[in-house]
């Protein structure tokens, strides 16, 4: 079998001990505290969304428990003018990018207006059909290159998604066209019930880039410093004309695939528990505490502030006006074609008849 050579980056081990000298940005404690804050927001909000689904307040949700470091890390590495094309599990990254909680809640609540985020106004909405975002990212990157803009398209995909032909085609286009795009494979070891080992005979997922001649590397996806560092370098490389990179971030899905899933059907709870010792928040907190940069009080204050932020977001979400019935017509085209007018009228007539005070 052919030899390969794939690098793996980690700075903080699961016990919060530094294994290699930290990169420059991580020498500033304020930066690390901000990363910690972002991960904590992700964790708390994730728990809230899961709870809201359980109590019927939103129809479905794809949790990211245990995977916060990857998303916070890469989103922090991005510049505002870069463009993100994520999957359905990239909520934490969207928050870092500037999507507000009420906007995000609308999405999960089943309202298209949740995709109208003003913050990162060129970012794509979360994508359901797996891997389709990756070729789109190449198109976005092509536009950047053509217009000579120093911007990068960032796209994510799961370990499962990395089996899809679209992803391969995306990498190949990116390599052939040498455009500024970074592919982040978020390897959380599971694609619903399919474990990583059975998804592909490839020893690493980073080596997928080799098929198309673009560099691939691995990073400890539970080490937010490492993710941020590796992605920053890939971004700078792309921004300065160095072309695309594939980054495989290795993490672990600590919970069900989605609120419709029951992972206990297909994986051993003991193995899952064992993975809790690798989860990303503890290690950064330990490091910060041991560096005297974080106290119990800080932790409590942070959680209080974040929970309030979340509650405020929920309140704002719940105060939104309901979607009008005709909304389903009004954004299909820049201008509603004549042929759809009757249908729109019919819907209006039906629901003005039967609904007195809007959607209930």
């Amino acid at each position, binding site marked *: 079998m052919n030899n390969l050579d794939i690098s793996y980056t980690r700075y903080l081990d699961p016990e919060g001990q530094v294994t290699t000298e930290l990169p420059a940005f991580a020498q500033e404690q304020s930066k690390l505290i901000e990363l910690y804050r972002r991960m904590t927001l992700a964790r708390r909000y994730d728990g809230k969304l899961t709870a809201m689904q359980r109590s019927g307040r939103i*129809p*479905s949700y794809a949790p990211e428990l245990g995977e916060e470091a990857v998303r916070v890390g890469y989103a922090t590495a991005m510049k505002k003018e870069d463009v993100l094309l994520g999957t*359905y599990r990239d909520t934490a990254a969207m928050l870092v990018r500037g999507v507000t909680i009420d906007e995000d809640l609308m999405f999960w*609540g*089943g*309202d*298209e207006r949740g995709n109208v985020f003003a913050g990162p106004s060129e970012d794509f909405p979360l994508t*359901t*059909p*797996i891997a389709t975002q990756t070729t789109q990212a190449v198109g976005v990157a092509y536009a950047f290159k053509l217009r000579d803009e120093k911007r990068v398209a960032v796209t994510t995909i799961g370990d*499962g*998604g990395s*089996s*899809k*032909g*679209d992803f391969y085609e995306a990498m190949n286009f990116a390599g052939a066209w040498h455009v500024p795009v970074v592919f982040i494979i978020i390897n959380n070891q599971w*694609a*619903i*019930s*399919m474990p990583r080992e*059975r*998804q*592909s005979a490839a020893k690493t997922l980073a080596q997928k880039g080799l098929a198309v001649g673009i560099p691939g590397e691995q990073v400890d996806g539970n080490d937010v410093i490492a993710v941020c560092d590796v992605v920053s370098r890939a971004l700078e490389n792309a921004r300065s004309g160095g072309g695309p990179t594939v980054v495989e971030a290795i993490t672990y899905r600590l919970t069900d695939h989605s609120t*419709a*899933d029951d992972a206990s*059907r*297909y994986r051993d709870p003991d193995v899952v528990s064992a993975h809790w010792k690798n989860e990303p928040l503890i290690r950064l907190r330990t490091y910060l505490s041991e560096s005297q940069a974080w106290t119990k009080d800080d932790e409590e204050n942070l959680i209080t502030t974040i929970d309030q932020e979340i509650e405020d977001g929920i309140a704002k979400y719940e105060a939104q006006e*309901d*979607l009008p*019935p005709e*909304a*389903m*017509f009004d954004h*299909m085209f820049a201008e509603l074609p004549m*042929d*759809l007018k009757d*249908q729109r009228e019919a*819907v209006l007539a*039906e*629901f003005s008849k*039967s609904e007195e005070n809007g*959607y209930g």
Partner: protein
Amino acid sequence: MAELTMVSAVCQALGRALKDDKDVVLLGEDVGVNGGVFRATEGLQEIYGADRVIDTPLAEAGIGGVTVGMAAAGLKPVAEFQFMGFIYSAFDQIISHVARLRNRTRGRLSCPLVIRAPYGGGIHGPEHHSESTEAIFAHIPGLRVVIPSSPLRAYGLLLAAIRNPDPVMFLEPKRVYRTVKQEVPDDGEALPLDLCFVLREGGDVTLVSWGAAVAETLAAAETLSGMGIEAEVIDVATLTPLDMPTILSSVEKTGRCVIVHEAPYTGGFGAEIAARLAEKGLLHLLSPVLRVTGYDTVIPYAKNEHRYLVSENRIIDAVRRAVAFPEEP
């Protein structure tokens, strides 16, 4: 005998097929240990092994292609696509090969396979989990498009599909996966393909439907009966090849027809049925052929979905317009 939901009836048929014919294999994402995200293959891997109930990598074009290869090489694969919204990557295989291999090789090779996919809205699923694109498949010569609307028909039609020597698209209306239960004996009896099922007789109007919308259609028929209008209700079941004789003879009797489906209006399969009536049944038509369907929009996310789906009220309105024609009801 226990009563089964439609999804359990599907599972029972799959188990039966695995048991009866060693060439039958199931494949798809999460169909193995997990038993499918809807549990349509629950417990089958345990009985028939991971070699015959096969978890695939996440790659729909691949699933399409390996299914063709398996079928041509003598197996009888039943592939599950997790949702109809994710079947599109396999279109090239379905259109270019599944539908054509027999014809291309004049029968030297063939594609005795079944492609299963849950379809339709109404479960408050995320985007792309609520598609109804059966009309696309129905336009591809060489495919059979079969849609059950009850546990009994799911069992009998799925067995028929698996035993059929040609490819079948077996589309399962997931909205009714668990809404009704029926006694479904595991007797290995298939139901006939290529025939409509007349679910209710009536002389005033013919209601033609399939899939999940059959439920609202039947409910509307009951309500209409209370209003003195007797509807004949036809479940098309096999869209292609279409059993037009059954529909035609009903419309010859009633003179009026309302077609009900969840898919968008324009180019939906309802158009084909209406068009055939305009060709072959014109002299019998006492009123316009009406279609009660989804709109020509993307099916909305959960919050607005109920306003898109066909309702009993919309069916009743249409029937009353048809019956009153040329007056307004």
